[in-house]
């Protein structure tokens, strides 16, 4: 663009003007939008699928809950092996040589054994077998605990999560602990215990959410509501309500290779980080669009502006 053109385009307009009541326009806009929004609210309401509780999970899918509790003890759950910011179990996701999560450290420590199972169990009065199991667990060293939990986790997986079909073995108090947690969850006292962790004030649901996500039940609920990220779930909403359609581009990358394949290295396995990077770059691109050659010329080439200003162009014979 020539400097002369920029001068003309930035100078105060000296051509014809028309009456324009900005305040009236603004008030009318607020009133109309408020009426339309109130009408839609009256007609359709808003989405509000009930929250999933641990009680609901433990009652509806006890075997899944029980197996997840065992995984938390054995350290084989998703959370137990997550890495930063929850623990040091793995390096986590990386962008090539950049291990950003790991470098920023464990800022929200989660110890699945104690936070998810042992501490909640100590907050309630347990039946004798569970109380004894707790005592046995707490009186043992970490190596023994780990051996018991790993043995039982392996055996339970082999038995297809059916505790009644697990063959005898060296499991220590693990079956009783998982059973105690299941009873506690079914009674509805695990939800609060997980959140409070023995405290009074608490507003951080991290531990509940991570535990909930380690099982299959929560994931199945999400699949049933079409919310899985691998099937555009990021854009979707429960029921028939509109979702976050503005996330279409973010969601798009998860649907295409290599990002839709978790086994693909390095991109699929680290899709979260790469897509975050791509979207960050694209956002900067949007913000700086007028500076990008090619893109900034499109409005001159595809003359949609002739439609926008059709009246003016006609009147001025442009």
């Amino acid at each position, binding site marked *: 663009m020539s400097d002369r*053109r920029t001068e003309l385009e930035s100078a105060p307009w000296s*051509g014809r003007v028309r009456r324009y009541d900005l305040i009236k326009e603004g008030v009318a806009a607020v009133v109309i939008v408020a009426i339309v929004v109130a009408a839609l609210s009256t007609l359709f309401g808003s989405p*509000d699928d009930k929250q999933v509780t641990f009680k609901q999970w433990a009652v509806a899918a006890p075997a899944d809950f029980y197996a997840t509790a065992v995984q938390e003890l054995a350290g084989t759950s998703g959370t137990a092996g997550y890495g930063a910011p929850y623990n040091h179990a793995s390096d986590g996701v990386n962008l090539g040589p950049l291990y950003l999560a790991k470098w920023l450290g464990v800022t929200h420590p989660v110890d699945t054994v104690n936070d998810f199972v042992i501490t909640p169990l100590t907050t309630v009065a347990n039946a004798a077998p569970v109380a004894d199991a707790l005592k046995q667990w707490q009186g043992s060293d970490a190596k023994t605990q780990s051996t018991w939990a790993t043995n039982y986790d392996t055996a339970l997986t082999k038995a297809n999560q059916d505790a009644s079909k697990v063959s005898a073995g060296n499991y220590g108090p693990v079956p009783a602990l998982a059973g105690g947690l299941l009873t506690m969850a079914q009674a509805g006292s695990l939800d609060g215990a997980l959140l409070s962790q023995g405290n009074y004030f608490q507003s951080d649901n991290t531990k509940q959410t991570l535990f909930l996500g380690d099982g299959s039940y929560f994931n199945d609920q*999400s699949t049933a509501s079409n919310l899985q990220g691998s099937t555009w779930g990021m854009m979707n909403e429960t029921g028939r309500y509109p979702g976050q359609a503005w996330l279409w581009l973010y969601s798009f990358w998860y649907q295409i290779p290599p990002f839709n394949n978790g086994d693909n290295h390095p991109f699929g396995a680290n899709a979260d980080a790469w897509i975050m990077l791509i979207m960050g770059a694209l956002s900067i691109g949007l913000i700086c669009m007028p500076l990008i050659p090619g893109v900034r010329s499109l409005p001159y080439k595809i003359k949609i502006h002739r439609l*926008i200003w059709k009246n003016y162009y006609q009147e001025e014979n442009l």
Partner: protein
Amino acid sequence: MSADIEKEMWTSKLRKGWQKNLPIEKLLPDTQPAYVASWIYLFGVATLAALGVIVASGLVLSFEGASWYHYSSVGHFVNSMHFWSVQFFFIFMVVHLWGKFWMAAWRGRRLLTWITGALAFVGSIATAFTGYLIQTNFDSQWISYEAKDGFNSVGIGSRFNVTNFGQMILLHVAFLPVIIGVITLIHVLLVRAKGVVPPIDAFNNELGERK
């Protein structure tokens, strides 16, 4: 006060700059250039109107608390107002953005207007996202569970913990609306200060270019 002293003062500099660039006649004009005659010009103000409904309904919700709408039918209605005004906010903003793109509205030293608008768009997505996290229902449970991986993957999760309800509700009602409010205010003041961008072909004759 002598003119020399006045010249050095930050306060007088600000006043003079303000008066020069954004006198009240520019802030609240009663005319617009003749080319401001298309429905597309209404989408900016429509976006602001939707934002107004969002803030108003959000304020009511903030007085009653995040769980109110689960058990009160009035609460559900106000929550619905909040929900639908957000949908319209994005609809209007996207149409506004399309309109401004095809007008190449950054011409004539209006780059900062575009940048603040785009920042408002990106910031609104973040704000809406935190709103989805504090619905205290299944949707917010799932969104926080899924989204944590995205933020954790690049280390943002170490400071911005989407599964921390307390952090998300505070950001949603305090920090993020203030950011959006300030960006929007700057955006609107820039539009008023710079004026509505003239048509792409408005000066072709003057520049002696042949069409």
